[in-house]
């Protein structure tokens, strides 16, 4: 992927959105996720992790993502 340089943040192109609910969107995200997984393989602790709130789940997620 080429390096692109900008003189200010305002010059950076905005995120590219695809058409909502396009049938290719999920497959593209799955392919991209799989590719990212190949570049940086991770192993999360298998099994069920039950949480009393989304905040508790997010804390676990942050730990997993940091490791």
């Amino acid at each position: 992927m080429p390096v692109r340089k900008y003189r200010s943040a305002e010059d950076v192109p905005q995120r590219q959105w695809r058409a909502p609910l396009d049938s290719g969107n999920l497959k593209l995200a799955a392919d991209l996720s799989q590719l990212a997984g190949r570049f940086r393989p991770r192993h999360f602790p298998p099994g069920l992790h039950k949480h009393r709130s989304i905040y508790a789940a997010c804390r676990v997620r942050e730990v997993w993502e940091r490791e």
Partner: protein
Amino acid sequence: MEVLSAFERRGVIYALVGSMAMAAQGLIRATRDMDVFVASDADNVERLKQALRDVYDDPEIESIRADDLAGDYPVIQYVPPQGEYWIDILSRLGEAFRFADIQSEDLVVDGVRVHVATPRTLYLMKKNTVRPQDAIDAQLLKDRFKLEDQ
């Protein structure tokens, strides 16, 4: 897609939320998880378990319980045996969101009907959470879909 296909086959009542829902709505990025909001009644949770068993040979799935999801544990992270990603199974977010509050729309991928939270629902779910990424997503959704606060 295998999991979503199993959900449809088994008739699971769910809505895709989180990063994969953002992707379905057009913002593609890599993720390690898939978030699904589910109806927490016993029949639906049984269908959910059957669908997961169709995909994963994992006795842990048996420990998913409707009374947990409807009660003290409304968030379950399921990491399949390979440990490469996880599925967040949600039945409510605090007092703000229950399954009945989720508006969804359908997307068909390779013949599989996928129920995806609407941009407005995603925006409302993300705008008041503590994760910085959620705040960014909320703003992106607001700008892209010209959403107004009500």
